[in-house]
């Protein structure tokens, strides 16, 4: 589904991302982990054609994302709160996204009604602007906004951050269902190793812009990841 080839991005000579080859098959739930500055958001931004690659290409469903826009109808994303429109209410925001993706009000209502649990009664019908919601509730609205219009690829950057524990668990269930039952390719990044290992079938570790680990999730993956990041913490303290 998503094929990355020789992609790299540098800012004034400093390389922030360099991936030689990365294939994400359709329907895979894919997790990206790494410390701050490892290149997770850069990779997602390249995938969404929000920044221009220095070299290489990302192909989504045989479409080179930086050359054509036809990948947009089947791709959706929530990267950060700048994906929200602060002066709309959550409902208006959902309808707006729905309009852009060819969904009428009834379609959108049908979809959002499935997330009543997830919203925990704090989003719909509150007559509040998105800009006035708490960080966690903004995130909930943004994530559900990214599910509108039956996308085949969903990109979520740090979806678990700022969510309360109950919502985190509900979100994990939602993401698993999307990949398993509906065959959606879900790309998630996170700092929380436990959450990604729970949700993702495959986990890629980025370090300084490069892929250092590519794991199929199994019961020992969490241990392995923890060991990996503990090691870099230890080696960092030894260097000091």
């Amino acid at each position: 589904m998503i094929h990355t080839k020789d992609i790299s991005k540098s800012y004034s000579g400093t390389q922030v991302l360099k991936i030689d080859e990365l294939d994400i098959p359709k329907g895979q739930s894919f997790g990206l982990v790494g410390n701050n500055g490892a290149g997770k958001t850069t990779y997602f931004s390249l995938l969404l054609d929000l920044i221009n690659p220095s070299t290489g290409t990302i192909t989504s469903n045989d479409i080179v994302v930086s050359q054509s826009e036809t990948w947009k109808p089947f791709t959706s994303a929530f990267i950060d709160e700048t994906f929200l429109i602060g002066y709309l209410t959550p409902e208006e925001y959902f309808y707006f996204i729905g309009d852009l993706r060819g969904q009428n009000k009834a379609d959108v209502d049908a979809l959002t009604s499935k997330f009543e649990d997830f919203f925990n009664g704090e989003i719909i019908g509150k007559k509040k602007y998105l800009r006035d919601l708490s960080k966690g509730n903004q995130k909930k609205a943004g994530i559900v906004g990214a599910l509108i219009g039956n996308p085949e690829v969903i990109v979520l950057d740090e979806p678990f951050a700022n969510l309360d524990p109950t919502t985190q668990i509900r979100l994990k269930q939602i993401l698993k269902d999307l990949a398993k039952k509906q065959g959606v390719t879900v790309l998630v990044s996170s700092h929380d190793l436990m959450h990604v290992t729970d949700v993702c079938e495959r986990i890629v570790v980025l370090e300084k812009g490069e892929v250092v680990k590519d794991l199929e999730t199994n019961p020992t993956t969490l241990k392995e990841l923890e060991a990996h990041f503990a090691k870099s913490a230890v080696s960092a303290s030894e260097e000091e």
Partner: protein
Amino acid sequence: MIGIFVFLGVFLFKILTKFFPEQDPFVVANGFVFFWILGEMGMRFFLQKLPVMSVKPLLTLPVKRSTVVNFVLGKSALSFFNFFPLFLTIPFGISLINNGYPISQVLTWLLALFIISLIANFLNFILEAFSSDLNIPFLPILILVGGLYGLNHFGIISFTEIVANGLLAISNNPIYILIPITILVALYSFNFKILRKKLFLDASLKTKVKDVKAADLSWTKRFGDIAPFMQLDLKLIWRNKRTKSMAFLMVIGLLYGLFFYPQPTYRDMEFMWAFIGIFSTGFFLINFGQFIPAWDSGYYKMLMSQNIKYEQYLRSKWILMTMSVMIMFILGIPYIFFGWKILIAHFAAAVYNVGVNTHVIMWGGSYNRKKIDLDKKAAFNYQGTGAVQWLIGIPLMAVPMALFGLLNWLIGFELAITTLIVLGVAGIVLHKQFMAMITQKYLDSKYKMIAAFGKDS
């Protein structure tokens, strides 16, 4: 600005002696102080804010609450606004001393003026504290300044004299300076009381949450595929401080002609008609258009990753601007009172606005690289304004004005009008082609815009 002030200060004495040869320049200068204060209050209200947010980190530190309040108020006393007048008054004071006024008198006078500045400083914060909850936040200041000016102007209470005599009395008898000092202390303690009550995270430091009042925008459906964007734009205008005050300013644009037409000198200057026509029918066009697409800078990334047609996004803005021109023209029909030729000139200007200026301003928008924070006030807010925004003003206003003026002078009114209309109609006919060009321009600068809008300026 400072340069002008210093210059004025140095030469004020000479200027006053020249214009009012029979009077004492010092007395004349005091006569202006009242107007100075009014102007200062107006300026402060729109430009100066109590630096209250800067204390958020102090609240959790072991500092007494009253110390924090004193810190905020003290900090405001060091504001540039309070020292600004000194650039004028000190040079003037020096020239007074040079011309033989007693030093002690001049010094007391300077001190009194400085205290007046501080009084204005603290009075302004009280005013802001009370008006911040109102729907039209600048109403109280308008009433206050306008009211005082009116009372003075129509001779009901002559504040000019009160202030002037007060200042004279103080400089002649320094003991009277205690009066402004007392006022200052009173205002300070009043501010202290207000602020102390408000300095909690859940009071003034927390932004207020208002309930949403949604209007029915289903009428936009008749515009077909661009309806979602039109609804978004209308909500953008109505729900954000900066755009909302811009919408209110349209009244000024509409009434702009009234500054000129009542005076026969201007009414007979035909080239002014085109200018006023362009300006008053295009007021919204210019103010809204120059910040396309920066209005959407806060969520530009999202728009760019969505399945949107750029052309639809831009066409929605175009229709909005076109509608505003038509509405402004219709509301301006009463200008016919000053002559039917004026109305025809306005009509030609409106057509030119729709056909030419809308496209020019949107083309200029593709050079927008500055983020706009929608929650800031509009007056004197130049955020998002770059060199291009100023440059674009030339073809928008100067070109039609020059064209009209020249043709009108060389050949005649009819031809000048026809030219503007023909240009406008040509623009409307070529609308599709222009839009395609503009859209391409926006697409070309997509990455640059995303990167620029992502930065906090």
